[in-house]
C-alpha cells in the first residue's frame, strides 16, 4: 500500500507477491520494462507503472500490443545494451513462446517475472504450473518461489544470475496463492540491492558503433548443432553461479536459498518433493505428523532449470518411499517434476526407490493439509502404484 524504504536498512512491509516482485524490480531499476497485462501477473506491472508515475524510477516503460511484442521489445532493448525486464503469465507466456528460445540462444540476460497460471481451454485464470512447464526446455533458468518473501528475493537473485551467467532467468511464483496474498516481507535497503546487483555492463551492444557486431546470425547444418551444444554447456554453468549468488545473497539478507530446501528430511523415511506455494501447506502437515512420531519430510525444489539432478538424488537417497507432487498436467506422460526426480535417483546411483506421482492444485483447486496427509499415508502403507494419482 505505501512505499517507504530506507536506503541502507531493511524495512518490514505487508506486500503481496506481485508487489514484492515489483519492489525488487524498483530497487534493481532496469533501463527498460516492456509491459502487457494478464491476470495474475498484472499486479507486477501495474505496481511498477505506479512507481514510475510517482517518480521513483525513470525506467522506460514500453506499452505493447501483445506478449509477443513485450518480449520482442525486451530483446531489442537488451541487444542495444540496456538492462531490460518484463513479466507474464499463462496464455501470455505461451504467446511469447516463439521469442523465448531467441533470448536464450542469444544469451541475453533478461529477467521475466512469472505468476504461473492454468492454460485455456477451458478458460481459467487461477494458479498452477502448466504454463511454465510448457516452456521449460527453452533455455531459460526457472526459479520457483513459495511465499512473497521468496518472490522478492528470487527476483534479485535472478537479475544477478542472468547478468553473471549470460542467460535469461524466470523467477516464478504461483498465481494468486503467492501473487495475491498479502504477507510479511522484509525489503532490504535500496542501496544494498543496488550494490548487490551492480551496474549492467553488456558484453556486446548494438549501439556500440565502434565495435560493430552481428546478432541473430544464420547457422546451418555445419554450425547450428555446435551452437546448441555450447549453449547447453553455458547453461550447466548456471548451477554453480546460482549457488555462489545464493551464498552472497544470504550474507546481505540472512536468508538461505539453494537448489532446494530440505524440511525435516534428515531422518525422514517418507518424503514429498514439490515446488512453489503449496510447500507451505506441506510443512504444516509435516509438523502435524511429526507430533504423532511419523518420520516425514519435504524437499522443496527452488532451482528447476537447470535441474540439480545429482544433488537432489543424494539428498533423497536415504528416503524409503518418495512422492512427487506436480502442479501441472502432462498429457500422455508422467508429469515433469516426477520425471526429473526419477532421473535424479538414477544419476545419484541410488538404490531403487518407490516413487509415486501425484498431481494437485490444477486450475487453482484447493490443496488442503488433509490431501498432503493422505499422500504420506500412502507412502507409509506402501500404496505406490505406477499410475498418476490426482489430489482432487
Amino acid at each position: 500500500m505505501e512505499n517507504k524504504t530506507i536506503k541502507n536498512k531493511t524495512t518490514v512491509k505487508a506486500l503481496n507477491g506481485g508487489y514484492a516482485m515489483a519492489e525488487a524490480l524498483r530497487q534493481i531499476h532496469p533501463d527498460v520494462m516492456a509491459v502487457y497485462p494478464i491476470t495474475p501477473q498484472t499486479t507486477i506491472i501495474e505496481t511498477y507503472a505506479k512507481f514510475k508515475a510517482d517518480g521513483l524510477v525513470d525506467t522506460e516503460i514500453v506499452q505493447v500490443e501483445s506478449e509477443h511484442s513485450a518480449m520482442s521489445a525486451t530483446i531489442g532493448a537488451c541487444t542495444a545494451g540496456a538492462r531490460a525486464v518484463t513479466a507474464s503469465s499463462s496464455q501470455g507466456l505461451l504467446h511469447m513462446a516463439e521469442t523465448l528460445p531467441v533470448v536464450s540462444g542469444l544469451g541475453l540476460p533478461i529477467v521475466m517475472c512469472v505468476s504461473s497460471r492454468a492454460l485455456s481451454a477451458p478458460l481459467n485464470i487461477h494458479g498452477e504450473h502448466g504454463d511454465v512447464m510448457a516452456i521449460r526446455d527453452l533455455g531459460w533458468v526457472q526459479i520457483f518461489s513459495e511465499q512473497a518473501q521468496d518472490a522478492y528475493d528470487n527476483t534479485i537473485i535472478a537479475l544477478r544470475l542472468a547478468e553473471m551467467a549470460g542467460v535469461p532467468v524466470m523467477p516464478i511464483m504461483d498465481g494468486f496463492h503467492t501473487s495475491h496474498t498479502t504477507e510479511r516481507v522484509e525489503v532490504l535497503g535500496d542501496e544494498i540491492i543496488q550494490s548487490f546487483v551492480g551496474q549492467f555492463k553488456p558484453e556486446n551492444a548494438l549501439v556500440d558503433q565502434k565495435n560493430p557486431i552481428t546478432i541473430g546470425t544464420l547457422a546451418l547444418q555445419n554450425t547450428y548443432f555446435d551452437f546448441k551444444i555450447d549453449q547447453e554447456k553455458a547453461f550447466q554453468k548456471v548451477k554453480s553461479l546460482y549457488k555462489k549468488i545464493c551464498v552472497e545473497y544470504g550474507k546481505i539478507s540472512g536468508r538461505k536459498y539453494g537448489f532446494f530446501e530440505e524440511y525435516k528430511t534428515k531422518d525422514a523415511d517418507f518424503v514429498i518433493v514439490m515446488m512453489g506455494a503449496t510447500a507451505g501447506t506441506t510443512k504444516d502437515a509435516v509438523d502435524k505428523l511429526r507430533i504423532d512420531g511419523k518420520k516425514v519430510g519435504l524437499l522443496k525444489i527452488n532451482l528447476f532449470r537447470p535441474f540439480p539432478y545429482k544433488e537432489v538424488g543424494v539428498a533423497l537417497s536415504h528416503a524409503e518411499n518418495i512422492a512427487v507432487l506436480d502442479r501441472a498436467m502432462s498429457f500422455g506422460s508422467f508429469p515433469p517434476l516426477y520425471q526429473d526426480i526419477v532421473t535424479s535417483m538414477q544419476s545419484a546411483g541410488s538404490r531403487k526407490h518407490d516413487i509415486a506421482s501425484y498431481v494437485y492444485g490444477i486450475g487453482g483447486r484447493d490443496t488442503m493439509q488433509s490431501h498432503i496427509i493422505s499422500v504420506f499415508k500412502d507412502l507409509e502403507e506402501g500404496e505406490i502404484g505406477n499410475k498418476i494419482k490426482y489430489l482432487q
Partner: protein
Amino acid sequence: MKLNKDTFEIIFFARGGQGAKTASELIAHSAVREGKFVKAFPFFGPERSGAPTKMFLRVSDKEIRTQEPVTDPDIVLVLDETVMDSQDVARNLDKHEILIVNSANSKEDVRKRVPHFKGSIHCIDGNKISADIIGKPNPNMVLMGHLIKVTEIVDLETAGEIFREVFTEKIGKDLTEKNIRAMQAGYDEL
C-alpha cells in the same frame, strides 16, 4: 479440529466493492507493523462489483505457512447481510466464537438466519454509523473497528496510523479523519 491453534483466522463476507479487501489488508498491514505475521487473501473468484466475495485473514506471532483457504474461522465478519441468503456464513463457527454482522436488524432477527450457530452475534449498524460520520454508507471501517475491539489482534492506534499513511494522499485529510472516527465508533459499539 483446528490445525493452526496459534493462528487467528478470520473470514470476511461482502460484495465486490464494499471494501472487505481494504479492511482485511489494513489489519494485515497493522499486524505487520506490530511485528506479527499475516496472510490476507481473497477467495480467488472473479472480482465483479456487486458479486459475493470472501476474504481470508490469518494473523499470528509465528510464521504462517499454509496456503489453505480458512475453513474453520475464529471469527466471521459479514459486511452485507444479504450474502446470508445464499451462504452459510457461520459454518464451523462454534459456541465460543463470534459472528459480526453489518445490520440494522436485531440480534434475534439475524440469529434466525443462522439457526445452527450457538455463539454470540454482534449486530453493528455500520451503514447508519458511517452515513452519520462520513456522510455516506461505507460500513467497512466501522465493522473493522469493531473487529479490532473484539479480537484485539492489532491496536486501534496502529490501524489509524496505517489508514492515514495509505489514504491521506488519496482521499484527503478530512475524509481520512472521518473514516478513522468511523473506525473508533465501531470500536466503541457494544
